[in-house]
Every structure is written in C-alpha cells, then in structure tokens.
C-alpha cells in the first residue's frame, strides 16, 4: 500500500507540474531592467497584419546591421531623407527640403514641424538630429557604423529648432546616403535615449508610423500604429513580425490565413505555387544584388583565367535561373546591375560567356587542368543545386570538383580567414556601386576580415577613381571600364541577379515590395 501511495504521489506531482506550467501565460517576456516608461495607451485590436520574417536581432539603429532588422527598424523610425517607394531616388522624410552649399560639403536640412516622438517623448527637433548623428560617431557608444560616419561627417550644427547643418569632409555626393533610411541615418529621440539608457534597444522610440509594443525574442515582434504619425495614423492597427523557421509551416500558415505576408521566399517551387493562386499575389521585384561563384585567384588552378572562363562557359545562366533559382531572378551580365543609375542597360564591349561545353573543355585542356580541387559552400538556398550542377557539367568533360558543404557559421569563419578556394558570393542592395566594389573587389578588403576572398587587385585604381569622380558621365564610364575588366578576369563569376519572392494574401491592399533593402512602407498598406 505504501508503495502505491508513493507511486501515485510521483504521478500526481508530474501531473501537477504539467498542469501548472500549462496554465502559465503562453508568452512570458521578461521585462528588461529599465526605468518606467509612459504607458502605451491600449488600442483596440482591429486590423492586424502578420508577416513571416527572420528573427529580430536589433531595434536600435545605432547597432543594427542585418537587412532583416531593417524591415522592422523602418517602421519605427524615420530619417532626414528616404528612398522612394519604387526607386532609389532620395525623397524628403523628416526633412522637408535641403540645400547644398557651393562647395558641396554642407547640407542644410529644413525639418518638418510638429513631428512627434512615440510615447510622449515630445517633438522632433534639430537637437535630436545632432544627438542622433553624434551618438553614431561617438566611439564610446560602440556602434558598428562609427567609422563610416566619423570618416564622412565633419560636424553637425543646430541652426534653430527646425534647421540643422551637416558638414561632410568632402564634396562626395554619396555622403548624403548616410542620412537616409539606412543604418545610422535613422533618427532617435535624445530624451528617450537619455531616459532609457542601455534599455533603449529593448524599448525603442522613434517617429515612425508604428511604435514598439512587444518583443518576444525568437518568436515575434509586435508593433502598433502610432496615432500621431506626421503622415496620419496608418490604416493597420497592429503589425506582427512572426518567426516561423520551417518554410513548410510558413506556407501552410499563409494558406490558412494565419499569416498575411511571406517575405524572403527563396524556394522557386513554393513561389510558383502561389503565382496562379487567386487568393494571393506575388512579387519578385528587385534584381540589383548579384549572386555567383567566387574564386581564390592566388593559387592554381583557379589562378589561371582560362580555367575561370571555362567554368563560365559551363553554366547556362538562363536555364539555371529558370530551374535552380525557380525563376526568382535574372541572368547576370556583369558584377554591377543595370538597376544602378550609373550603369547603362548595355555596356559596350562587355565580355560574355555563352554556354559552350566544348569551348570549356578546350580551355581546360589548354590549361592542363583535370582537377579543380574543392568548392566550399553552405547548405541553404540554391548553392547545393548550383554547385552540383557545375560538378556534373565538369564531370561530363572530364574535370573533377569536390564539393564540401559547411555550416554557415563555419563558412563565415573560413571566409573571413580567406580559406575558401571556390565558393559562393552574394551582394546585398547598395545605394551606389562603389560600396559593393570596395567590399568585394578592392585589395584593401582582402582577408583576414575582408570580403575580397578572390585576393583580386586589378581594379583598385578604377574603384578609387570612381570614388573621387563627381561628373556623372565620367563616373558611368569608369564603372563600365570596371565591368569590362571584371568580366575579362572573372575573379567572381556573376550567375544571376537575385530577388527574394514575396507572397501576399489578397486581403492585403497596397503592399509594396520595397525599393531598397527591406524598406517596406507598411503605413501605405491596408487590409480588408
């Protein structure tokens, strides 16, 4: 009997533990240790938009770097200027207009009046601009953007409450992008940062159409409409950025109506399933970023340009885009997309490498190469299929290639150490071409740490010349020269200009796919 009682007790304890934890609130976000902030008035939950997107890492513009965080940051904050809904043209945001001094170094911004900060932190003024930019440049803040801003901005001067002057170190017209809706350009409230201190990132305060409501790490970020937004309260009352790691589940959730928008779709088959579905509409817009294959040009056999050109001749880019990429993108013609204003639709004299296995075989024979060694890739996305296809094409002409799949963190580590002989590359969206070129193809960006894992240095002078050039026509000419040189030497083989697909439920009206990075204008969206 005693034993039965003990056994029963154990079972009851287990049942009690289960029940107690079952009755716990589903989300127990621990409140960060920050001072009290003014209560956010409860809004009745009416229109809600649920977006499936990647994990939120950072909500403080001084510290965010990942493009996925950009989508959320863009709803909470504004900058002095912004990119257009459908283009990279710069438009007014918190600044109504701006003037440029004769020497091209000083920009005077005339700010909107009556713009309010979230949560009763007062009105946005020039003092907030000064504070925001100085904060980014302050080494003590430890922002990853400090070097970029410190090297470009000479001073920030408050003229009056609604006028501020930003003086750059030189007349490079690209400096103005630093004040746009990108990274450190977003404005923060001086009062809120001083009030919340280190807790600001967990309770962000901006002027944007949506204000912070709740953040459950690894699960969801909830934003609610800001009723006093300077362009009017947005139609949707609550926006939820939901993390759903498994794409199959995300697809089911979309079909069931549990989510409204599926962003960053890389699966072409999934995307195609929704193209003809009358309940949804799709976007595959973009095409500026480039993806392809990168070669370490230091050592044989990849140091031989004939080998790199031979590889280029083995890839039928149109077919690859249609099949492997699932139609999400276009065949790349060079390293710089024509979507950049500086790049013409057609660059004269640009080398191309049409699909020609016979020519590839001849080039390999001339170079005396039958073994390309190892390619190191990550497991996700199109890379396994693309490299397997290349391996197959090589095998058909008697050349061997071994493929090593690495975990992403390991691959990143090896990349930063320059230990990848043949691998993938992909550029992000950039406001102008020089940034991408500097990052991936200038000799000052070689590892350790840099991304020029080709160790290529043949266009350094041209990249530096482009950086200093102010005449748009001459600048375009320089970029065309760079394009031609890169396609001749092929330190990287551009394969396609990619775009992430977006699938949107029909009940969502006015969704815009974003012109730059992830600058979705959710304040222009409504739901039925």
């Amino acid at each position, binding site marked *: 009997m005693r*034993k039965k009682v003990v056994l029963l007790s154990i079972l009851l304890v287990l049942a009690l533990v289960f029940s107690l934890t079952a009755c716990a609130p589903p989300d127990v976000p621990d409140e960060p240790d920050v001072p009290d902030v003014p209560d956010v008035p409860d809004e009745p939950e009416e229109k809600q938009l649920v977006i499936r997107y990647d994990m939120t890492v950072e909500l403080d513009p001084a510290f965010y770097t990942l493009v996925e965080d950009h989508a959320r940051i863009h709803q909470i904050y504004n900058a002095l200027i912004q990119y257009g809904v459908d283009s990279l043209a710069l438009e007014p945001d918190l600044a109504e207009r701006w003037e440029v001094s004769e020497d091209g170094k000083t920009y005077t911004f005339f700010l909107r009046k009556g713009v309010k900060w979230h949560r009763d932190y007062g009105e946005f003024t020039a003092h907030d601009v000064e504070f925001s930019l100085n904060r980014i440049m302050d080494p003590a803040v430890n922002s990853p953007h400090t*070097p970029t801003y410190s090297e470009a901005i000479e001073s920030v001067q408050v003229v009056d409450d609604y006028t501020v002057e930003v003086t750059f170190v030189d007349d490079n017209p690209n400096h103005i992008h630093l004040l746009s809706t990108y990274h450190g350009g977003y404005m923060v409230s001086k009062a809120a940062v001083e009030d919340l201190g280190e807790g600001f*990132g967990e309770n962000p305060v901006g002027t944007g159409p949506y204000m912070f409501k709740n953040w459950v*790490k*690894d*699960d969801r970020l909830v934003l609610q409409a800001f009723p006093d937004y300077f362009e009017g309260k947005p139609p949707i009352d609550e926006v939820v950025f939901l993390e759903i790691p498994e794409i199959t*589940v995300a697809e089911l959730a979309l079909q069931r109506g549990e989510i409204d928008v599926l962003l960053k779709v890389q699966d072409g088959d999934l995307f195609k399933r929704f193209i003809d579905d009358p309940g949804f509409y799709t976007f595959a817009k973009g095409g500026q970023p480039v993806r392809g294959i990168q070669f370490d040009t230091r050592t044989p056999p990849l140091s031989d340009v004939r080998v790199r050109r031979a590889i280029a001749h083995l890839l039928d880019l149109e077919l690859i885009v249609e099949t492997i990429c699932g139609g999400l993108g276009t065949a790349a013609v060079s390293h710089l997309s024509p979507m950049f204003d500086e790049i013409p639709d057609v660059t004269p004299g640009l080398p191309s490498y049409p699909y020609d296995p016979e020519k590839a075989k001849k080039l390999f024979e001339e170079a005396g190469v039958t073994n390309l060694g190892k390619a190191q890739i990550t497991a996700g996305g199109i890379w396994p299929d693309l490299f397997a296809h290349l391996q197959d094409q090589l095998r058909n002409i008697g050349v061997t290639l071994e493929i090593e799949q690495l975990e992403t963190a*390991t691959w990143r*580590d090896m990349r930063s150490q320059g230990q990848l002989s043949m691998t993938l590359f992909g550029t992000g969206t950039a406001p102008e071409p020089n940034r991408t070129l500097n990052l991936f193809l200038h000799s000052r960006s070689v590892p350790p740490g840099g991304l020029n894992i080709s160790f290529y240095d043949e266009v350094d002078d041209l990249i530096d010349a482009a950086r200093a050039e102010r005449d748009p026509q001459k600048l375009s000419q320089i970029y065309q020269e760079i394009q031609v040189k890169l396609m001749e030497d092929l330190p990287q083989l551009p394969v396609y200009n990619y775009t992430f697909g977006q699938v949107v439920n029909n009940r969502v009206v006015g969704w815009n796919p974003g012109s730059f990075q992830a600058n979705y204008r959710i304040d222009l969206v409504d739901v039925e």
Partner: protein
Amino acid sequence: MATYIARRILQTIILLIILLAFVFFLIRLLPGDPVLSILDPETVTEEQIEATRRRLGLDRPLYEQFAAYLMRMARGDLGQSIQHRQPVFQLIRRDLPHTIHLAAGSIVLVVIFGVPLGIIAAILRGRTADVGVLVFALWAAATPSFWFGLILLRIFAGWLGWLPLMGIGDGSLVDTVRHTFLPAFALSVNGVGLTCRMTRSCMLEVMDQDYIRTARSKGLAEQIVMFKHALRNALIPVITVVGTTMGAMLAGSVVIETVFTRPGLGRLAVNAIFARDYAVIEGTVAIFAITFVSINLLVDITYSIIDPRIRYS
C-alpha cells in the same frame, strides 16, 4: 535509500562540472564567430568586428574565459546571450516550461499508446494483430519525428484544419492541450514504437513464468492473471525504458519545436548553436543535463519502489 540518493546527487554535480567544461572548450574550438551572427560583415569593418569581440571578452585567452566562466557559474550566473542581450537565465526560465509541456505530453502518449499496444500484441501473440502491432512498432521506431511532424501538420492543421499549426496557445488548459497535441504526438512516435516492443517482450517473458501458470491453475480469471500478475511484473523494465525515453524527448524537442514553431529550450539551443551564442549553449546544455540525470534518478527510485528485490545502499 537516502545515502544512495545523496551519492547520486554528488555524482551528478561532478558529472555536470565535467560536462560543462567539455562543452565550454568544445564550442569555442569549433569554427564560427559569434560576432558574425550579430554583425553583417558587408556593413561593418574588421576593426568594428574586433572591437565587438573585445567588448564581449571573446579576445581573451581560453583559460581566462574559462576561469571567468567558472566564477560566474559558481555565483549561479549563467551569463548574457550575445544575440539577445538578455540574461541566459531569463531566456531559459521563459522557454523551459514549454519544453516540459512538450516532453510530458509525449511521455503520456508513449504510455497511452505504447503499453496497451504491447499488451495486445503479447496476448494475441502469433496472430494477425500481433504482426500488425509489430510492423507498426517497427515503423514508429524508425520514423524520423520531424518528418512525421510535418505530415501531421499537413493533414490535421493544413487539410482538415482541426488543430493549430503553430504556437503554444493562449494559456488556458484546453488551448494548451490543442497546441501541444500534434508536436507531442510527433515527438512520441519513436518512444511509442520502442515501448510497444519492450512491453510485448516483457509480457511474453513474464507470461511464461511459473507463477503465471500457478495463477491460472488456481482458477483465476484470465483478466486478473494478465493485468494483476503479469503486467505488474512486466512493467518494471518498461518503466525504465519510458524514463530513458524522456531523455530522448528532450533531445527530440530541438527539432520538433522548430518544426511546430514553438518556443522552447530545444529551439533556443539550436538557434544558439547556429549563432555560436556560447552562454546560451552552455546554459541549455546544463539544464538538459540536470533534467536528464534527475529523470534517471527518479526512474531508479521508482524502480526500487516497484520491485522490492531492488535495494540501493
């Protein structure tokens, strides 16, 4: 018994220290930089990456980091998550209940399905039902739980719409059970197969014993022979298997929580591994280890209670 328990607890503490030291060095020797999971190298300079590494103390020699880690653990401080910038203890406290739910629900299903099926197969040994159960048990033991989970989602949440697709519910008992059922079912499949086969084997072994023959000879009803005499003795090893299955449940929660978009320790650990969030990895491993060892201890104690022949000193 008290001495035995005390000795086991001491062994657990020593084991935990060795395990955590092993994990500490292992994850730091793996390739992968935690800083690169929070900073985009396309946007920041190498100097900034190094500065962040210094700020997080990741540039210090391993032995220094280990010493700081031990001192921190001695104070009960599990450290700060690099990714989430929150104390690891907070993250674990948030997610642990959800994993317990999932594991507990799975164990209940393992017992509800595995034991009766094993009994049926034993009683109907050699017949079609026995063969059917054995085939099912083999399939259940061999089926990957994440694949089964996706199938369940597709059928019950997708096509039929009977059960939720993801999440943990609104906190009420009914909603929690609704949200836990499918993931628990998926997680339990391997345990059901294993428990079913074990129950059948143990029942068959017991049913051939002399005391069962004696019970029948005494004219006892077959029901009493089976469930009062045979089953009670057959369940002793089955309890051990079910207990150790709990450990497998914790491991399986890693994948199931991701598939079913549930918060939990498993998903927290997986994300931490991908991001090389060292403190979170160490903290979750510690919790898993403590839980696993505690369950084993509980099983041993239960075993000794059920079987009077077992005595621990």
